[in-house]
């Protein structure tokens, strides 16, 4: 069934990084499968291909465990966008982004864009608990060219809003300001000029994989932002001195009639 899309070569790479248990897999799962499910700690990294309009976007969902640290730079190589994820109820998870994950992004593209994402917003923010209803609407708009990932709307009620975890007991440990400050530091680390880069308020998100709050907005914003990168890559490919054996479809199609 999915062969058609699987044969396609990814045009661009997006990587999700962040500490263990911040909800990286859940975010991706919410976006692609439209539901929230308890996940098991990811081993290594998981590769997904997402069709976005005419483009194929590869998404690497990485393990947050230190155990797999060594692989991080491999996953990030050539990435066009990196989602740095933390848990809004866990200050340490924000600190880990700087301590452990930032250095992994050295292998990413020079023009790589960074998003800072505070997940589990439903635990601290009443607004994030309420978006369940509207989520369904935005879903459909977002599903545009999707083929590979099936739209699976849960039959009855989509995730009971913020059930047992008693939100009152969980204090928000990371504010939006701290996230934007981190964004600024990342730009400086990358030697990027703040004025010519994407503004922090556009690249810092608070999401809830559980309720779906802001999840589509996050991925769709990023995908739109990496489009120029895709186009440039396709252009470059035509000039590429390296023969790419797999890429017979698009870029090199003209030159290789045989396939």
């Amino acid at each position: 069934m999915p062969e058609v899309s699987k044969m396609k070569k990814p045009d661009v790479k997006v990587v999700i990084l962040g500490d263990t248990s911040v909800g990286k897999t859940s975010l991706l799962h919410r976006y692609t499968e439209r539901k929230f499910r308890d996940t098991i700690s990811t081993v290594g990294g998981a590769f997904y291909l997402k069709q976005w309009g005419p483009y194929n976007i590869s998404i690497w969902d990485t393990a947050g465990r230190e155990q797999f640290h060594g692989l991080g730079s491999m996953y990030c190589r050539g990435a066009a966008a990196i989602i740095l994820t933390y848990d809004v109820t866990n200050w340490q998870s924000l600190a880990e982004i700087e301590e452990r994950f930032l250095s992994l992004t050295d292998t990413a593209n020079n023009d790589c864009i960074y998003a800072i994402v505070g997940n589990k917003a439903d635990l601290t923010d009443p607004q994030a608990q309420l978006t369940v209803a509207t989520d369904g609407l935005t879903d459909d708009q977002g599903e545009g060219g999707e083929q590979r990932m099936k739209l699976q709307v849960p039959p009855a009620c989509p995730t009971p809003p913020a059930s047992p975890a008693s939100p009152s007991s969980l204090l928000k440990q990371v504010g939006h300001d701290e996230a934007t400050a981190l964004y600024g530091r990342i730009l400086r680390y990358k030697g990027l000029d703040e004025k010519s880069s994407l503004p922090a308020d556009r690249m810092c998100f608070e999401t809830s994989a559980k309720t779906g709050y802001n999840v589509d907005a996050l991925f769709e914003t990023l995908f739109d932002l990496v489009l120029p990168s895709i186009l440039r890559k396709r252009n470059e490919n035509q000039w590429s001195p390296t023969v790419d054996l797999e890429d017979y479809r698009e870029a090199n199609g003209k030159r290789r009639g045989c396939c």
Partner: protein
Amino acid sequence: MEDPAEPPLPGPTAVEQSATLEAEPNQNADPETEESEDVDVSAQSADIVPDEANGNNGNNGTDCSGEFVVTMLARSNLEEQAVGTEGTSSPLSEDIAEEAPPLQSHRDEDVMAESWRQHRKHVFVLSEAGKPIYSRYGSEEALSSTMGVMMALVSFVQSGDNMIRSVYSEEHTVVFLQKGPLVLVCVSNSRQSEQQLRAELLYVYYQIISMLTQASIARIFEHKKNYDLRRLLAGSEKILDGLLNLVDWDPSFLLAAVHCLPLPSSLRDSLSQTLQKAITPNLVFSILIAKNQLVTIVQEKTVIEDARLEPADVHLLLNLIGASSAFQAGEIWTPICLPLFNPDCYFYAYISYLDPPECTVCLLLLSTDKEAFYAVAECKRRIEEAMVAQNSLSLIAKAQSYSVSQVGVSDLRHFMYKPFDVPDNHHQLTQFTSPEMEAPYSSDEEKMRLLDLYRYMHSRIHSSSRPLKLIYHVAERETLLAWVTSKFELYTCFSPLVTKACAITAITKLLRWIKKEEDRLFIRYPPKYSTTPNPSKSSRKSEQQDSTDNGFMSLL
């Protein structure tokens, strides 16, 4: 697999003789008293356990210098803290009910509760500094004092240049395993033998190694004695939970053999060929799994000359796949160490399901190259294409485990047959075959009861103090016969009314049936491929070995 039908040739009388010879004490003793101990008679466990203890005590005391067994029948400090012996209700029936829903998280359990104490089998992992690393039930933090006591016991015995191996109490067996800087402890009331429990701890150790490698664990603790290894294992608890669950329910672990999916040999061969063709440099193993059973395995030939793939490594891989199946649409790329193959190095495993969304057929490709993801993923595409062309997926979907009724022997309820490494010129993965567990072993309680009976038979056969070749065991609700020869190991379960002569005839028939079906039941000749234009340093061997292999290859 040459002739499993041959051994019975000596005929029933000869077999019976050997039965009386080898298993004499059991035969002569009143079967009801000595042998028919059963689930709900908890008093008898007390008879058996100290008995085993004494046996081991004598044995280990004399044989293994520098190691001894502490036999403690009184309630020790440890017990008060960790074990608890108050629960007098049937150890089995209750715990099975609790364990039945597999992969449930027990992290949040109250470690002071009686229900915690009554778990059938606890497993703890701690560092030599006494730092908790893993507990099967309850959180490690809550158990730090308990683990401290365990470490105190270990180091107390160690200070006398000895090694603590086990502690026996009325209802519990406590087994210790020290591996490098890790100490593993099992507290069990399952009445398994110490040997079996230690083998299970070893699986736990290997699973940890498979995630971190032995070398890196050693390095970490050399560097920092009181390192908290949970930092590196955080998130892996479920993999260990899953392993312990499998160890309890899947006899593959007990038999140290791999269970493969019965499949017409023509289909298996064509699948093997498909895997054999889809290769890329540095690919070393291609493994196809369906319904958690092995379908076929193709190996890189120069690598496999260095070391064979052990069943335990395959078990760890299968457990890893089971534990990472939560999000099945993606393609996983992860480092993994096969501890028996090489405890210090990583392979890179590509894991992908071929039949989403059902996710029963899984392809596992192991490479030695960290960067090979895209090349290996391309192999998967080719395999997938070939399988679609041959309609293999639907054929695999039809394959099933078989029913014991197909053997056509009345009174035979279940069996496990493990042939030993037969084509001698070739190191083969040890396998076993076993039918579906059917009525009366359909409920979880009954399944576990049968597994426990098998474990008991296994412990008698493999007893270090008094190993047996054949044992005929009349239990309350069934009769079991276990038999080990140089060619195979066999466990059978009959209805309780079977006679000894009947059972022996039945086994002869069973062995003939297996011989007839062996092409379907086993992977006979695991094929190989060569992918090493630049073989990894260790995997070069003499040329003559190569040529014998080529000879073998041409036979395929």
